[in-house]
């Protein structure tokens, strides 16, 4: 008799425990435009979020083709995060086709990560396309200054808390922890780059002003000065002259550009081509936002140490 009662009691207790699981909240679905934003959302949301990035880290984020399958991802999303500043003009098609009001501009689920970030190169004069595919609102690669990463974290956290108020405490704790981790890392990175402060570099595309400002580099020229417009031979010739004159040792190239032209320039000038990813996932092994800077700083220090960058 007692045995039956205990068995019955155990069964009821177990089912009570399992029934608690049924009431556990489903994961918050977040879609980001870039892998950097994905990494930052995951740092805050951890196991309570399910994040997809539309662009891959080794893809040029300006030229992403908005596919119908991406619309399905957005249809089911609770939150959408974008870099902003006209980097993702292609995302408007996706949002229009998503039929998901939660992520329309102006709603709680639509996050523009650039709010409050330190922006550089905001145009102050009349603009037209003679300058190539220009950005009207400032250079959009602002996530490459880790302090802006902290601003992005605040923007994401604020919206996540509105999408899921019950998890606010959890998100805030994770956000504060990651910001502390970034702060500690900043000390380390700045210290590593200190001996090379003021070093002049050339970059392929104008993706690096925020990174250069943060770590003391000076970008003196571009392989492709007008974004989206391949450079004419006259520009390449004057760039080679500039590199020789300013004693530039490093040409930074993003992984989605062809190395042919940078290699040609490097051979003519004795400088070195350095492939640095501007985004998480741009190179194998770079899987987090902090990891992105760890990789880039270590590669730079290695290259500058060998080529005798400014000490």
């Amino acid at each position, binding site marked *: *008799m007692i045995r*039956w*009662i205990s068995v*019955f*009691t155990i069964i*009821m*207790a177990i*089912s*009570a425990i399992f*029934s608690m699981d049924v*009431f556990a909240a489903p994961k918050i679905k977040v879609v980001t435009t870039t892998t950097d934003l994905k990494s930052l959302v995951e740092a805050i949301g951890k196991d309570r979020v399910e994040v997809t990035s539309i662009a*891959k880290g080794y*893809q*040029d984020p300006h030229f992403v*083709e*908005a*596919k*119908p*399958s991406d*619309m*399905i991802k957005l*249809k*089911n999303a609770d939150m959408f995060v974008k870099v902003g500043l006209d980097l993702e*003009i*292609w995302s408007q*098609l996706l949002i*229009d*086709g998503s*039929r998901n*009001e939660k992520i*329309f501009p*102006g709603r709680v689920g639509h996050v523009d990560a650039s709010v*409050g970030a*330190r*922006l550089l190169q*905001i145009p*102050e004069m009349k603009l037209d*396309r003679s300058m*190539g*595919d220009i950005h*009207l609102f400032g250079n959009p690669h602002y996530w490459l200054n880790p*302090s802006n990463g902290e*601003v992005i974290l605040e923007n994401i956290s604020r919206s996540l808390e509105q999408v899921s*108020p*019950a998890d*606010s*405490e959890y998100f*805030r704790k994770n956000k504060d922890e990651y910001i502390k981790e970034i*702060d500690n890392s*900043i*000390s380390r990175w*700045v210290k590593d780059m200190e001996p090379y402060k003021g070093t002049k570099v050339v970059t392929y595309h104008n993706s690096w002003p925020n990174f250069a*400002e*943060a770590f*003391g580099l000076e970008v003196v020229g571009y392989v492709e000065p007008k974004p989206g417009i*391949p450079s004419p031979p006259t520009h390449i010739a004057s760039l080679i002259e500039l590199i020789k004159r300013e004693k530039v040792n490093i040409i930074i190239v993003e*992984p*989605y*550009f*062809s190395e042919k032209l940078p290699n040609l320039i490097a051979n003519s000038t004795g400088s070195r081509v350095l492939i640095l990813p501007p985004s998480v996932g741009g190179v194998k092994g770079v899987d987090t936002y902090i990891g992105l800077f760890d990789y880039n700083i270590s590669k730079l220090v290695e290259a500058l140490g060998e080529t005798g960058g400014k000490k």
Partner: protein
Amino acid sequence: MKALYCLFICTFIFLPLCFAEGDIEALKKEVEELKVTVEELKKIVSSQEVGKPTIEKPSPIPQQAIVEKPAAPSRAISQTLNPNISIIGDFVGNVTDEESNTEGDRFSLREAELGIQAVVDPYARADFFIGVEEETPGEYKVDLEEGYITALTLPWDLQAKAGKFYQNFGKVNRIHRPETSYVDSPNILTNYFGEESRLKEPGISISSLIPNPWDKYMELTLEILNGENAMSFAGSNSRAPAYLAHLKNFFDITEDSTIELGFSGITGFNDERREQTTNIEGIDLTFKWRPLKEGLYKSFQFQNEFFFSQREESDSGIDSFGFYSFAKYQLARRWFVGGRYDYSEFPASSVEHEWAVSPILEFWMSEFNRLRLQYKHTDRNFGSEKEVNEVFLQWTYTLGPHRPEPY
């Protein structure tokens, strides 16, 4: 008796546990909200404490959170409220050996198409395209190519369009001629939809994403349009609408390649007495490849469309069909090479047909400035000239925000 009593007690202990889950969850939520309020209050109190030391953030990275933005914002704001205005110029020069072509070898600013697009309000967007076309040599006519409103926030994941728009039949019919990958239009579009090479009638359109267990993109569109297309339907004397359905299926094969398979059907009267029906069915199959890392430099597209037409006449019926097959390969960042094969019959003829082959070379000075060279050899089994050779040179250029091309 004792056993029953124990069972009764256990049930009363455990059953409420399950139902109380809901209560516990509500309580938990309340506690969370109270915690949030306490945190806010703590912040308010601490901010009022004077002279409290804060931990210095490591320098020299600038810590300014808010940057004073210069004059640009007012421009930015005014730009935000203005609609997106763009204009495409379509300049064509052609030489032909077709004797019966009265226009001969000439240049033409074939079309200037003005696009005005914006969000109307939180619920809808509107798109207008006004074309100024050279109808006959030296004479231009203004035409409303498209003018429609799209409702974006309907229930059940529906979207609706109303106005005049290019019908969702097949794949190419929705694309404006200056934005296609060829100078001319595929023969089936011209032969079945008329000289304008597009089915573009006023009407309404409703589309829905069909839920499926594989979460694949399946879009069903239903349209009711005027049956006034002169080539396949009743022309301007039409007294009844036509009905269209299109099912678009989209698959990602790998992260670099995709396939789209579409099925279209349209039915309408081809006479004003509403006694004779024309049905046209379409199948479209498109394969696209673009390796993500080298995406600026390489891509490939293979696109095919088939039209099947059944036209009732007073005493008989005419069945006809046609197709095109188009391939385009990106050689380098700004160079593309492609070719198209056309075979087409005619909706109102059971004997006439033609085929054509067109190699195409394309060069982009930039995304906004494109040059194209196309040679077209056409072979017909009717008319005084069975073979025609043409060479086209096209230069298209765009001003204004570059609206993203649909995939």
